[in-house]
């Protein structure tokens, strides 16, 4: 009997994978629901004996089984999109059934936890430190140092908190781990718990990911005998973007408003319920089982500069070949967008690529030489964040995108600090005036005779732009967390690279390098 493997990842489900699976079952095939290979433009994709077919519709099933389908893509593992990758975290993607303990164990599962237990806590942390693994949530803080801090903190109760509040647009790698390989995340948390002496772990998942929540809960129930005495519990967010910020997430876990806390104290010393807490992103914890199983040195061999190992990069937006591409740091932005991503889905030229979600900078094609590396992007006034790429074609209006960044910040601000709470709203108003080229006339209060120092003349476009830059500076340096602090990245990058969209003179063409 023919075995057909079809993903049950949410991206596949959104493309009607269930209907295709039902059609194969009706044709007498055995259908296995596996994780997604990450080639999302081919979803729903079916795999039969290693051969791939996609994107399928139920009507295509007969042709696929007859061997006459025009949607055959050949051997999946040899597809250029897959062959170019270095898959550490996503080694099982497409190959295993997410909730099968047998599949997990047969593909090297639990080996990392077993070795960690043999090594003992100190040597486990040493492996993570050697690997050079940095926090994959965006800040890039070395995981080994964070773990050491928590391990050395005094107290009998410590926590592992997995930040699965993946709210950035263009990011779905966390979701794919949780839906496709949940045991790996649970194993990573158990290793972290073993290393720092924590007995309890929480996974804080956003409520927009119902499929991930269901898979995790089922996986945790199955994994209990493997991770005991360590315990893991899923907690569900409630639609607040800011809860992806670690201190706000901790408040939310405690049952409070998701307001950001001032640091210090660091969560590593006073985190959840005031106890020492490791807060790591899904991808950070998911990288740990591989590191323990294969050694930190093997992980550190891959990478670029101070960014070691691999990064699961997410290609999204107006891109021809959208999906998940895991590769060592150092690949250039241009390779990702043009070669791997195949350019835009609409076929028009690329105008901008936003890297790192709603708080990341917009990069023009002139930045395509940038290597994917924390430091290189920081030097170019950007960030890699959670490694999501949103591609825009030439129809994008960059002043509208800048306005969206401010309005998003206004909608999602927790309200704790003034630059973010009020600055974002003033930013929207300011960009609206710039877009309308309306200038600003003095208001009623400003024209009162006693307001000697208030300006009476309307503000010009250039003055409004200067004011916007000034506001961005205040937000960048005055906000408590990255929401207010990084919103200036998309705004200022749009202003710098596409001033013509703001009614300013276009920049002179820079000399070719």
């Amino acid at each position, binding site marked *: 009997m023919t075995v057909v493997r079809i993903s049950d990842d949410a991206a596949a489900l959104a493309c009607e994978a269930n209907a295709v699976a039902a059609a194969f079952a009706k044709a007498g095939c055995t259908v296995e629901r596996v994780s997604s290979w990450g080639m999302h433009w081919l979803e729903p994709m079916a795999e039969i004996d290693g051969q791939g077919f996609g994107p399928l519709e139920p009507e295509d099933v007969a042709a696929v089984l007859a061997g006459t389908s025009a949607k055959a893509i050949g051997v999946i593992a040899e597809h250029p999109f897959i062959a170019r990758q270095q898959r550490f975290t996503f080694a099982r993607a497409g190959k295993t059934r997410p909730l099968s303990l047998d599949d997990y164990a047969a593909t090297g599962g639990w080996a990392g936890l077993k070795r960690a237990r043999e090594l003992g806590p100190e040597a486990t942390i040493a492996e993570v430190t050697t690997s050079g693994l940095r926090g994959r949530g965006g800040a890039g803080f070395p995981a080994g140092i964070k773990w050491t801090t928590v391990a050395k903190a005094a107290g009998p109760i410590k926590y592992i908190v997995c930040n699965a509040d993946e*709210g950035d647009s263009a990011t779905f790698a966390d979701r794919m781990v949780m839906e496709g390989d949940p045991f790996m995340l649970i194993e990573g948390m158990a290793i972290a718990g073993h290393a720092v002496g924590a007995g309890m772990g929480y996974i804080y998942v956003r409520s927009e990911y119902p499929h991930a929540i269901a898979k995790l809960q089922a996986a945790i129930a199955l994994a209990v005998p493997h991770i005991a005495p360590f315990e893991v519990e899923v907690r569900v967010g409630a639609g607040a973007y800011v809860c992806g910020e670690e201190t706000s997430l901790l408040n939310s*876990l405690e049952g409070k408003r998701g307001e950001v806390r001032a640091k210090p104290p660091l969560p590593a010393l006073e985190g959840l319920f005031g106890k020492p807490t490791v807060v790591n992103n899904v991808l950070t914890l998911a990288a740990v089982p591989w590191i323990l199983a294969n050694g930190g040195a093997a992980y550190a061999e891959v990478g670029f500069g101070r960014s070691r190992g691999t990064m699961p990069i997410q290609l999204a937006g*107006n891109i021809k070949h959208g999906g998940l591409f895991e590769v060592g740091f150092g690949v250039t932005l241009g390779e990702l967008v043009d070669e791997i991503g195949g350019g835009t889905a609409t076929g028009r030229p690329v105008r901008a690529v936003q890297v790192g979600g709603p708080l990341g900078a917009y990069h023009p094609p002139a930045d395509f030489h940038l290597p994917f590396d924390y430091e290189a992007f920081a030097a170019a006034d950007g960030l890699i964040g959670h490694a999501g790429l949103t591609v825009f074609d030439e129809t994008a209006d960059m002043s509208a995108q800048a306005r969206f960044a401010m309005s998003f910040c206004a909608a999602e601000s927790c309200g704790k600090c003034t630059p973010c709470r009020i600055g974002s709203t003033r930013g929207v108003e300011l960009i609206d005036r710039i877009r309308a080229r309306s200038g600003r006339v003095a208001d009623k209060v400003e024209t009162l005779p006693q307001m000697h120092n208030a300006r009476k003349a309307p503000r010009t476009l250039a003055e409004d732009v200067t004011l916007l830059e000034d506001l961005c500076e205040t937000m960048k340096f005055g906000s408590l967390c990255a929401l207010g602090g990084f919103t200036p990245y998309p705004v200022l990058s749009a202003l710098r690279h596409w001033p013509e969209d703001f009614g300013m003179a276009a920049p002179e063409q820079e000399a070719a390098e």
Partner: protein
Amino acid sequence: MTDHDELDAILAGHAGREGALLPILHDVQAAFGHVSEEAVRRIAQALNLTRAEVHGVVSFYHDFREEPENRPVLKLCRAESCQARGIEAMVAALPDNPRVAVETVYCLGLCSVGPAAMVGHEVHGRLDAARLGALVESLA
């Protein structure tokens, strides 16, 4: 079982749990479709919090409603990746249907197969104006 008993059962189910407020509110929202003033009062009492503290939490998170929404809800992702795939023009052209609540979410994590929407736990990708219109019609 009355609403009163059901609320008590939810509270009893979370007794002794660390940081129980959000899980309780999720259960209350799921059971009653909203978190009423009466529910806030009883939850506050059970957790030894003030009503203001519970109200503060309910009003902070987008998921919790203070008034029930009786229409079917379509959650439409309008974040950057879906914008890059043209969601804003589709929203502008979407005929108003008073029998369906169309809400905006920032990111369903389906950024490579957008524009995307979610109804309950059911996800829909690769929407275009016609498919989005048909989806709204199917809910009405």
